[in-house]
């Protein structure tokens, strides 16, 4: 994969500035139970209905580690080719807040479960491999989420909802390897894709299952790293890019006005599109991290790691390569069909209806991208909610392939399938849409068309080639569009000479 140098620059009064970006992504681990308690984790439940004694930090309660969360973190690490640390440990991060009943968050500061890995991003959808970049991942650790304060329930008091308290998160910390908002967005998109392939996080940013702390600094090209700021809890792809743009410009302005950047934590105001200071390094919490004495160090066996590895599906990069080399898809089609796991699954289910998938792969891919995606988009449905199943689509594509219907008729049939839920063959049969390939019938119509348009025939023969389309159109019209266009073309050429 070729590396692409970013050309993204901030134009300042003193010249060009580079931007350096690192992301800490918090991804909620897909699991029925919380990281250290058996409470449920469903999104949107009534406040405080998914809270165990442990989550509420009742006196004498102790955490017990949920093995499924460990498994998902290890699988995620393996999916980004990271080092799995066979020894890791949990630390307490101490601070007071009403959404944190224990008074500490159990996290992994000193010994994270996953070490260095790498994520390949693409900066060009048309040809990802030609414009790729490797973004380093420094570590992944697992930790507890906090609860939520509700400030709009009472005129003078804030309420606490502990449903989210104790839910398992992976914190995925990148290296400062990104140099533009576009790269950061590509990184988050790719990370999200991998997490969803692995099944370790649903990647739902609207529901807060994935959110990012955005670290930004600026420097003159070739200089040492500048001082960074960290903007917390940014929860959409668009906001991440906005934060970077705003923060980079702000930093350049501060420095060029003779000021200095302070290392600080900032918040993003989504309405104003601005970041603002939350607390500076001087006011930073002293979290008093220390090993949690309630939990033993986590030691992983080789067999466990092996099983985690064996349970991984084919990941997007491998899949994309296979679609290109084995199935013969274009780089662009391969990239689009593999970006979301569900899309690839749908595509492969379609291919599974034949024993020669490479023969129909390209036409199936084109059909999905031109017909299916458009239809789903109009209906506001995801591919998993598609009213037409892969098998039904295969039936439709089969009718095109064997010449039963034309591509044009197929569009019509597909529309009826979406409306009625009927199968393609049934629709073609009932509506009489079967394509006419019988040369006798077509020749008869052509003779009629030629007889009715003798002036145009003369013009055509006199060199007006463009009129050929007119004859095709007239013939098709006369046959209600059911004539095999190939046969029509051939016969017309013969007859018109």
């Amino acid at each position, binding site marked *: 994969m070729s590396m692409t140098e970013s050309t993204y620059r901030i134009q300042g009064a003193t010249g060009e500035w580079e931007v350096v970006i690192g992301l800490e992504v918090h991804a909620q681990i897909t699991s029925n139970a919380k990281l250290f308690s058996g409470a449920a984790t469903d999104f949107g439940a009534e406040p405080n209905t998914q809270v165990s004694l442990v989550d509420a930090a009742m*006196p004498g*309660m102790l955490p*017990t*580690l949920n093995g499924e969360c460990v498994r998902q973190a290890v699988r995620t690490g393996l999916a980004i080719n990271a080092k799995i640390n066979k020894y890791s440990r949990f630390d307490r991060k101490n601070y*007071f807040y*009403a959404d944190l*009943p224990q008074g500490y968050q159990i996290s992994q500061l000193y010994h994270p479960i996953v070490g260095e890995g790498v994520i390949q991003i693409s900066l060009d959808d048309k040809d990802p491999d030609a414009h790729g970049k490797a973004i380093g991942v420094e570590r992944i650790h697992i930790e507890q989420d906090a609860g939520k304060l509700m400030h709009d329930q009472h005129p003078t008091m804030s309420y606490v909802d502990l449903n989210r308290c104790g839910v398992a998160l992976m914190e995925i910390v990148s290296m400062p390897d990104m140099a533009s908002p576009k790269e950061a967005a590509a990184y988050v998109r790719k990370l999200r894709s991998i997490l969803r392939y692995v099944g370790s996080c649903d990647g739902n940013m609207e529901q807060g299952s994935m959110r990012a702390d955005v670290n930004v600094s600026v420097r003159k090209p070739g200089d040492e790293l500048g001082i960074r700021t960290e903007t917390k809890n940014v929860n959409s792809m668009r906001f991440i890019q906005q934060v970077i743009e705003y923060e980079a410009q702000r930093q350049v302005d501060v420095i060029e006005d003779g000021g200095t950047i302070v290392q600080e934590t900032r918040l993003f105001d989504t309405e104003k599109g601005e970041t603002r200071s939350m607390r500076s390094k001087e006011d930073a919490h002293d979290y*008093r*991290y220390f090993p949690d004495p309630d*939990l033993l160090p986590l030691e992983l066996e080789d067999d466990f790691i092996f099983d985690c590895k064996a349970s991984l599906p084919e990941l997007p990069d491998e899949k994309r390569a296979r679609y290109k080399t084995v199935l013969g898809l274009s780089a662009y089609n391969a990239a689009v069909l593999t970006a979301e796991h569900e899309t690839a699954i749908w595509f492969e289910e379609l291919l599974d209806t034949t024993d020669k998938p490479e023969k129909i792969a390209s036409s199936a891919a084109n059909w999905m991208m031109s017909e299916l995606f458009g239809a789903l988009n109009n209906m506001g449905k995801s591919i998993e909610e598609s009213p037409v199943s892969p098998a039904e689509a295969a039936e439709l594509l089969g009718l095109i392939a064997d010449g039963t219907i034309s591509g044009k008729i197929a569009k019509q049939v597909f529309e009826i399938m979406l409306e009625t839920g009927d199968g393609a063959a049934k629709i073609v049969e009932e509506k009489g849409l079967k394509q006419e390939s019988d040369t006798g019938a077509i020749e008869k119509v052509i003779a009629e068309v030629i007889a009715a348009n003798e002036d145009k025939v003369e013009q055509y023969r006199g060199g007006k080639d463009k009129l050929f389309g007119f004859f095709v159109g007239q013939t098709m019209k006369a046959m209600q569009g059911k004539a095999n266009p190939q046969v029509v073309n051939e016969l017309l050429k013969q007859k018109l000479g």
Partner: protein
Amino acid sequence: MANIQDLGIAGIRGGIDSGAFTAVEVAETFIDRVSAAKPLNAFLVETPDHALTAAKAADEAKAKGETLGKMAGVPIGMKDLFCTEGVPTTAASGILEGFVPQYESTVSANLFKNGAGMLGKLNLDQFAMGSSNETSAFGNVISPWRRNDGGNTDITPGGSSGGSAAAVAGRIAPAATGTDTGGSIRQPAAFAGITGFKPTYGRCSRWGTIAFASSLDQAGSMAHDTRDCAIMLEAMAGFDVKDSTSLDLPVPDWEAALNSDLKGKRIGIPKEYRVDNMPSEIDALWQQGIAWMKDAGATIVDVSLPHTKYALPAYYIIAPAEASSNLARYDGVRYGKRDLPDGAGLQDMYAATREAGFGDEVKRRIMIGTYVLSAGYYDAYYTQAQKVRTLISQDFDKAWEQCDLLLTPTAPSAAFGLGEKSDDPLAMYLNDVFTVPSSLAGLPAMSVPAGLDGQGLPLGLQVIGKALDEQNVFNAGLALEERAGFVAKPEQWW
């Protein structure tokens, strides 16, 4: 036949078994003892119904010929650090005033499953932080013991399990639960002339026990003698999936294997436990203990535990560090005390609640713990203390190459008068000098009452064993007990 009130667990078991008395008679005897003992302030909550219900169940089971649990019909006192379902639990702190758990600690649940009843919740040093019971928010326990000088100075029962020690010594409860973080079972047992046993760290589940210092806290038994401690510990201990640090091992039948013949056993005498200013009576008792061990067939070996002098400072870093974090949950938000001044915000509420709810010693330890964990000091204090802890464990490992058990005094003095050390935290911390090293190493250890000092107050000897080797600790304790013949008991003045 002795009075029921003088009986321990085995005695009660025997009496119920032979039909000499019923479990209900036992419960009623001790319920009366509890209500008559208010001047000692040993009980924070009395639960006579609980004791009676368990007693009736034991009598009914016996009538039906069913096999009785290890603790059937034994009404015990429960240190108020164990959460008990539906019964107020405070850790003797104002911050938990009014807190009633909706769950039962594993240790108390195990005891109840084995047939024990509960007489009530026993007073302690606040959050188990203290060695004299004077840090309780609900007034200190007064020891049933008095000096033989004819005066009526109130004596400390020791701490933190001071209510437990006083209740057993005063024949108010035949046995009681304790917890030991740095000596909180053994020191009060020694001060009150009873037997106290702290098992290997992890034998008893910590689930539902209010945490002081998680890596050190361990529940144990406090009773009249070694046999009773063994029976009760069997009923308390066991693996618990809800406590990641609990040991996934079967609980041995310690009582059945009790054997005071120490032939072939090597008893180590650590020279570092001979500290300055130790009363000569305690040294003499130690020598007497050595003689008793020899008499029981053991050989005596001089050993060295060179890092002993660093144990106390390390303990007073590690325990407060963990405590400062463990006690963060008492914030006035969800349960217990809440102090909400007019117009107060969240931070004000925290400050007011914790200021009003925590006692001075608790605040002192939270501050020490916060300090030693803070940025810039962590390595100098916490990391160093953990290294010391490792060295102390290694000291014991080396000693075990030469011996099977260690014999030491339990505490460097007899019980002192209430108020005599309460202004001097460092002097108070010194009480734990002999008990802290084995706590840091997570080893089983017990205190056996071995004699009285010149003032007529009890003194104890400590036996320390290898991890998981409770049996040999019990056996050595029994050998001492048989030879010491400690029968003294406090005269009832209350």
